């Protein structure tokens, strides 16, 4: 069964190729069937592979499928080879399965769109790249997947290209992640150069053997890779692209910018966790980045008015949790949270998609309201997803994964406090969103109810968001093969604290955050609205929130990227001057170059 592994990336890739080349001429039914069935094949195969893998684990608890040797020159032989171990298995399963659901959803969601074939082609290509990223056994394949998912993300953000703003958002995403990608490419090169192999497992083994803990090379490599992870996963300071990326179609946001691609950074760090173990300083940095991001993004989510941007900031914040877990060495917890997050965040986006579709592309949550009765499917889905996101204790998947992370943070009081504060924030913005959208009075009439193709994925994901955490007892030893058995952290206190934070957030949201006007200036708005508002709240809560929101409202860091772009333009202008069309200037450049070159030789 395991030898079918190659089918998982191959099926969507083949389908993408067909759709790209001849998709335009195919009827929509065929396009949809091809697009969905190819992913279904992937999902089924990964299910079968998982059963085989868990049923009779291969020796060493890892399976390597060598397809062919890519190059064999100069003593190294990277192959096109897939590597299956518990980590990649979980990732593949989640990616293919969630992708399948989202593709199914898209058949209806995108039905009216003229770029139907194009959409499915990109989405299939994305799945193929993502699976390649996860399953690749060497740095080249990892990099291939990494670039591939970035490209698809870029293409899909700008999918509705008639609005130039979308194109700009795509470019911004591209440029910002590019900063991280470059860092990662340099890091990969460094690893390859210093350790002399491209195979990830060998690399890790050699790193462990050759590099003492805290060695400069290990720190450099880990930090460079972290740069890539931070860019792809939208963590501080490269987080600014993700909210803008919401310009893409909602299924894209659900799949790429919530469930899968943005967690590639988490995967990268987990895959190379050995490096971080021998570079404790960088590992600590991972934890701090995670904690800082989860708080800042949480604040930002609190004041957004666009439903998808709220979810985007929430994604950043949740990935912050995963980074926190990675930084604490709780590798399995991070991956576990990735899994539950994939379920509930995809669910939230799909539900948001239903809402947006029903309200004629309305994104502003202050123009929504009262949808509880109008769109029950969306409401229940949102409620399930929201509870999982905010971590309703004991009954939702999210609480299991998040409590695990919080408990892991207990040795460090500051990080622990940040994690708990994060729960409070999550609960606040989640329920603010739910209350604003589904309670109160209806402001926009509902024009469309979701069809079957949209409902099935939503229901499945809703169930998974609730029960998806229950396999944790089995999960923990399964991952222990890879990450080493870690003692189960004491969770009681954390669970109680998180529960308290959750309910506080819920209650506060009910009382304070149901205002019917945009919270761009909550203080004033809340005064006018006359909602129960007291001096304490204004002093202690709103001001800092406002401040944090303002600081983090993309301005500071955005201007840095603008600066980069301006610099590039400036250089370009300088260079453009040299190409003025005048032959004699050119000759002078050649003569001047000669002068300098000869001088270099004579005087150097």
């Amino acid at each position, binding site marked *: 069964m395991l030898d079918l592994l190659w089918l998982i990336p191959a099926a969507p890739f083949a389908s993408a190729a067909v759709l790209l080349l001849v998709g335009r001429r195919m009827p929509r039914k065929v396009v949809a069937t091809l697009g969905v069935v190819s992913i279904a094949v992937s999902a089924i195969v990964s299910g079968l592979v998982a059963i085989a893998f868990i049923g009779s684990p291969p020796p060493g608890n890892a399976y390597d499928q060598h397809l062919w040797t890519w190059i064999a020159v100069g003593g190294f032989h990277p192959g096109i080879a897939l590597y299956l171990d518990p980590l990649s298995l979980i990732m593949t399963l989640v990616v293919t399965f969630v992708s399948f659901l989202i593709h199914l959803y898209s058949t209806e969601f995108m039905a009216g769109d003229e770029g139907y074939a194009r959409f499915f082609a990109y989405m299939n290509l994305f799945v193929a790249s993502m699976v390649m990223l996860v399953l690749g056994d060497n740095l080249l394949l990892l990099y291939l997947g990494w670039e591939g998912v970035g490209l698809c993300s870029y293409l899909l953000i700008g999918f509705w290209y008639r609005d130039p703003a979308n194109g700009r958002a795509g470019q911004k995403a591209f440029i910002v992640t590019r900063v991280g990608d470059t860092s990662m490419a340099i890091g990969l090169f460094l690893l390859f150069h210093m350790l002399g192999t491209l195979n990830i497992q060998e690399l890790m083994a050699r790193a462990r053997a050759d590099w003492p803990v805290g060695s400069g090379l290990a720190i450099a490599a880990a930090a460079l890779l972290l740069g890539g992870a931070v860019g792809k996963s939208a963590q501080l300071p490269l987080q600014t692209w993700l909210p803008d990326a919401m310009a893409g179609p909602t299924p894209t946001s659900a799949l790429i910018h919530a469930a899968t691609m943005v967690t590639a950074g988490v995967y990268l760090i987990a895959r190379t966790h050995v490096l971080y173990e021998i570079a404790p300083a960088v590992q600590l940095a991972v934890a701090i980045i995670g904690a800082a991001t989860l708080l800042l993004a949480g604040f930002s989510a609190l004041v957004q008015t666009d439903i998808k941007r709220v979810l985007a900031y929430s994604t950043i914040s949740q990935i912050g949790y995963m980074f926190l877990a990675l930084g604490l060495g709780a590798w399995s917890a991070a991956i576990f949270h990735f899994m539950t997050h994939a379920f509930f965040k995809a669910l939230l986006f799909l539900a948001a998609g239903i809402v947006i579709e029903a309200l004629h592309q309305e994104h502003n949550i202050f123009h929504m309201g009262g949808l509880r009765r109008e769109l029950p499917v969306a409401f229940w889905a949102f409620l399930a997803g929201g509870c999982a996101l905010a971590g309703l204790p004991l009954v939702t998947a999210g609480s299991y994964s998040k409590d695990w992370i919080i408990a892991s943070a207990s040795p460090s009081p500051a990080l622990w406090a940040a994690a708990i504060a994060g729960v409070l924030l999550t609960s606040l913005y989640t329920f603010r969103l739910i209350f604003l959208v589904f309670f109160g009075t209806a402001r926009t009439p509902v024009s469309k109810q979701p069809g079957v193709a949209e409902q099935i994925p939503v229901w499945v994901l809703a169930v998974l968001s609730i029960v998806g955490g229950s396999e944790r007892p089995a999960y923990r030893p399964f991952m222990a093969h890879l990450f080493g058995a870690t003692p189960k952290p004491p969770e009681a206190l954390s669970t109680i604290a998180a529960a308290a934070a959750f309910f506080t957030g819920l209650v506060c949201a009910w009382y304070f955050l149901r205002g019917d006007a945009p919270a761009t200036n909550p203080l004033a708005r809340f005064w006018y609205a006359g909602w129960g508002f007291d001096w304490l709240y204004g002093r202690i809560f709103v001001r800092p929130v406002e401040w944090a929101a303002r600081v983090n409202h993309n301005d500071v860091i955005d201007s840095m990227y603008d600066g980069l772009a301006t610099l590039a333009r400036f250089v370009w202008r300088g260079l453009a001057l040299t190409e003025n069309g005048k032959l004699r200037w050119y000759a*002078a450049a050649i*003569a001047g170059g000669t*002068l300098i070159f*000869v*001088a270099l030789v004579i005087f150097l």
Partner: protein
Amino acid sequence: MLIDTVLFYIFAALVLGGGILTITRRNAVHSAMWLIVSLLGVAGLYLQQQAEFLFAVQIVLYVGGIMVLFLFVIMLVNLDQAARERQFNRHWFVALVAVAAVGAEIGYFIYRGRTGFHIAELGAPIAAPHALGNTEMLADTLFSEYLLPFEIASLLLLVAVVGAVVMAKKRIQ
């Protein structure tokens, strides 16, 4: 020996004087004439260094062929208009400095390396230039060692002929 030195000065004066006037005369015909003077000076220097064959080729090919072609073209184009235009560009001073620097650089390093030329002589010389006479020796080498370049030069000339014809043909179609 003195006569050699005197001859060198005369030819060098021709070369440099001709060169300077070539690049400073307003009128292109005058420039071409001075270029011929300079080329003749170079031919003289060839002769002084016992390169009789090249001396002849310089006069026949360069002065007799290439320069006539130049003059021909200059006559073909509108001379008056060309003469009226400013001949030097505004940044001539900067360019002059750059060129002086190039010249000085190369000159400096030739001066520095003047002893270098003797170092690398490859064993014994093949033969003294006078053993056979320059032209015979040249022919001997040309048709043995340098046979291929000689034959291939015909391809080069063919390319030039085709190229010139393409460029000079009348309208397309």
